[in-house]
């Protein structure tokens, strides 16, 4: 495939950029994401996930069952902050974003 081919449509990351970080040692989707922004756009890797796995497999020979899934964070699909910051007093949906951070005395541990 032509190296200029876009793999991540949202952030417009090319195959060349992805192969470069793989040759520098990236082995998982999340490695590649942290180095290139691949998968950090609005679709959150829903489209490029399989293409990146194929690139890792092609370049390193790692079988597909050894290439882990990308991290899938909340919210599952794009949502307006206005909607997320619901006015409810009994249910705070916003805490969800912080669910993955452990707090101790109000500070990140």
């Amino acid at each position, binding site marked *: 495939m032509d190296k200029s081919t876009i793999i991540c*449509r949202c*952030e*417009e990351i090319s195959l060349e950029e992805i192969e470069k970080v793989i040759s520098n040692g990236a082995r998982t989707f999340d490695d590649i994401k942290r180095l290139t922004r691949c998968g950090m756009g609005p*679709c959150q890797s*829903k*489209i490029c996930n399989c293409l990146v796995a194929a690139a890792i497999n092609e370049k390193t020979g790692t079988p597909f069952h050894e290439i882990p899934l990308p991290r899938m964070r909340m919210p599952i699909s*794009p949502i307006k902050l206005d909607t997320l910051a619901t006015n409810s007093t009994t249910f705070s949906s916003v805490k969800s974003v912080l669910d993955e951070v452990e707090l101790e005395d109000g500070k990140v541990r």
Partner: protein
Amino acid sequence: MHIKHHPVLGKKLQNPVTIYFNDQPYTAYEQQTVAAALMANDIKRLGSSRNLVQPRGLFCTRGRCCSCYATVNGENHVRTCMTRVEDGMKIYPNDEDPEVRGESCGD
């Protein structure tokens, strides 16, 4: 083009509405999504990509790829493949990030 007579499902397009893309009126039908109705009117380019400014349009029709983002009735980044048309809807392409800094936004 709208399919007026479907070979299996018959005549299904009943209630026409008018939608506006870049202020030009186009005919759509009630059950259609915005992206589909625009495609029926041969409008495929719904926006540009953020870095390389390449044309973008409908891709997955499942609300997953976000390629069909457009501004609908003043709201930015609407997934037009998941939004049904309404009469008088005003649609503009998603050509740049919305202005979030400025007096109107309290910044």
